[in-house]
């Protein structure tokens, strides 16, 4: 076990060569997968130092995804809350409607470099599944997406979208029938199809090098936002906020700001029905370190080490773990993580829709709810920069049901 070094000069230097962020991360996978993971690590190293790869990536991010997306001053929300100025990084305006596509472009270009001919992915809310199906259509590779049967039910528009894009959506009926089980099933597929298959993991979790490469591909969020806020305000924000499920949009926003000591970093976890009820997805607030899906990280589990089911109105946050870098950031105190429940997220969803004319995804509605708590406590000269990670069209059925509206 590697221990975290308290004398780091930078919060951006990890993982170490074995994939550790302090005590978190690592490569806890079946031996069958080890050679594949080592191969991926090497391929990523090569790609990172190849200017042609960066050029290709930039091309697709600009012309296909539609980057750079705006940093938007949420003026009416700011007025309503009466405190800090609120800026939204508009990942909802990306092609496919969420931040997930940033990572998918990076990974499919890697898959191509490695000569892989088949793509698999797991999905919770369906956003990562849609993004994966999209890049597979664009690059002409067959795509299989594993999705919990419970999520298929509550995210039917995204299921249809994936099928329109030519992907095969395989329902997963094991365990809690949601994101963690979809990930188990994708790993089972990968271990069976080792020759030709590339696994596009959607969040900054899993065995090394996934947490690192997903973070790097998502860091375009924070890098752009940093430039944009400097242009708009001439200075860095006082606080950056993002919702965390596995934590890919959050780490993408946070990472470029980690060495800016005056920027407070706040992650928002799904508290579902409330931490005290046990029905939630807040692994940092209420879990403990354990090993699942290839990495050591905070997990929801019982005293015997059995993984508990997560619970959140947002399918994308409904995961009993979290990316290992977030676990490390929590433990060293560089970031704080706050729980937001279903009801608070719903209220934020409504408020943002009504005041800003932006229907946010339920995932980032959790971040908006936290902004509603933070902004009024801060002076009007302060700045909050929040990641609006996706659009909420996919969630209208869930929200209608929660509000008792029949569509």
């Amino acid at each position, binding site marked *: 076990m590697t221990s975290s070094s308290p004398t780091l000069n930078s919060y951006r230097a990890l993982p170490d060569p074995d994939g550790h962020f302090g005590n978190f991360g690592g*490569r806890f996978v*079946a031996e069958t997968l*080890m050679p594949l993971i080592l191969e991926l690590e090497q391929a990523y190293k090569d790609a990172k130092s190849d200017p042609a790869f960066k050029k290709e990536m930039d091309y697709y991010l600009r012309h296909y995804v539609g980057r750079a997306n705006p940093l938007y001053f949420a003026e009416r929300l700011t007025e309503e809350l009466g405190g800090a100025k609120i800026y939204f990084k508009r990942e909802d305006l990306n092609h496919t409607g969420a931040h997930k596509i940033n990572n998918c472009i990076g990974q499919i270009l890697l898959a191509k470099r490695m000569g892989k001919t088949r793509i698999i992915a797991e999905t919770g809310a369906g956003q990562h599944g849609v993004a994966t199906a999209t890049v597979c259509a664009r690059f002409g590779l067959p795509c299989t997406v594993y999705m919990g049967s419970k999520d298929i039910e509550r995210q039917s528009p995204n299921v249809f979208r994936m099928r329109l894009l030519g992907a095969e959506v395989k329902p997963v009926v094991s365990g809690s029938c949601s994101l963690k*089980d979809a990930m188990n099933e994708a790993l089972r597929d990968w*271990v*069976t199809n080792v020759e030709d298959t590339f696994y596009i993991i959607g969040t900054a979790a899993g065995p090394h090098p996934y947490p690192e490469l997903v973070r790097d591909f998502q860091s375009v969020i924070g890098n752009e936002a940093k430039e944009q806020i400097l242009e708009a305000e001439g200075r860095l924000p006082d606080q950056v906020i993002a919702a965390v499920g596995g934590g890919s949009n959050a780490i993408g926003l946070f990472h470029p700001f980690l060495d800016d000591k005056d920027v407070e970093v706040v992650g928002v976890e799904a508290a579902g029905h409330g931490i005290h009820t046990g029905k939630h997805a807040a692994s940092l607030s209420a879990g403990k370190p354990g090993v699942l899906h290839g990495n050591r990280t905070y997990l929801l589990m019982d005293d015997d080490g059995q993984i508990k089911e997560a619970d959140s109105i947002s399918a994308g946050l409904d995961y009993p773990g979290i990316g290992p870098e977030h676990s490390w950031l929590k433990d060293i105190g560089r970031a704080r993580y706050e729980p937001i429940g279903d009801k608070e997220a719903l209220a934020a969803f409504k408020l943002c829709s009504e005041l800003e004319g932006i229907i946010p995804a339920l995932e980032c509605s959790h971040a908006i709810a936290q902004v509603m708590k933070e902004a009024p406590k801060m002076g009007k000269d302060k700045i909050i920069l929040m990641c609006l990670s996706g659009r909420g069209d996919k969630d209208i059925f869930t929200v209608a049901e929660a509000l008792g509206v029949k569509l």
Partner: protein
Amino acid sequence: MSDAIIGGKDRIAKRFAKLKEEGRAGLVTFITAGDPDPEASFEILKALPEAGADIIELGMPFTDPMADGPAIQEASNRALAAGMHMRKTLSLVRGFRDQDHETPIILMGYYNPIYIYGVAEFLEDARNAGVDGLIVVDLPPEEDAELCVPTVEKGLSFIRLTTPTSDDKRLPKLVQNTSGFVYYVSVAGVTGAGSASNDQIIEAMARLRRHTDLPIAVGFGIKTAEQAADVAKQADAAVVGSAIVSKIAESLDENGKATDKTASMVTGLVRELANGVRNARK
């Protein structure tokens, strides 16, 4: 505590020496601890050696068995639903060990329940219960410091899975801290899926023999006495898991409870498999 009970790599070595003496391969049988319930599981476990199991792999139930196919996933679910947990798994071994001092028991599963138990405490309790070795699916050599090294220091075997993706470059790393025997997973995939051809197994055995003198057990996809016999011609042992736990599933009543046929259906299959293995080289 009697030395006859305490677990360790010697019991495995003695068993393979005996098999060599008898000029035959061994049968390794897998069941999940607590499947379908702790009591029925104990009855099955006790009956395995007499039915022909030379070595027993006992699955530690886990909610998220990522490398297992449906049969062993369901076995894990049945055990957990019946209230199984790690301490009960160890007491199952202890109960077995009170009666059988010779048949090696290998615990097989995933790391998290061991990590949460606490590695040092787990190894102490496992050894005292009479566990001889561990197979932990999600601990490759890159993570040896976690459990493999402490296990070997405790005198227990840490048995490594080698796979069709383990090439000559990787194998030295795989066998370096391993002891007892080497488990060859004959197909890339989850437990209970397809099986490898004879030629593939012969080729893999030759590759493994270049890197280790330890006995080699071959598993994954072996369902019948004929398949077990084929493997037993090449390998030092054949491992059967999914077929056995499927037999448990088949024996249950409509409510998923054990019946008076449960133990006998399992031992019936184990007898057939043992016959296949024992007569393979005749």
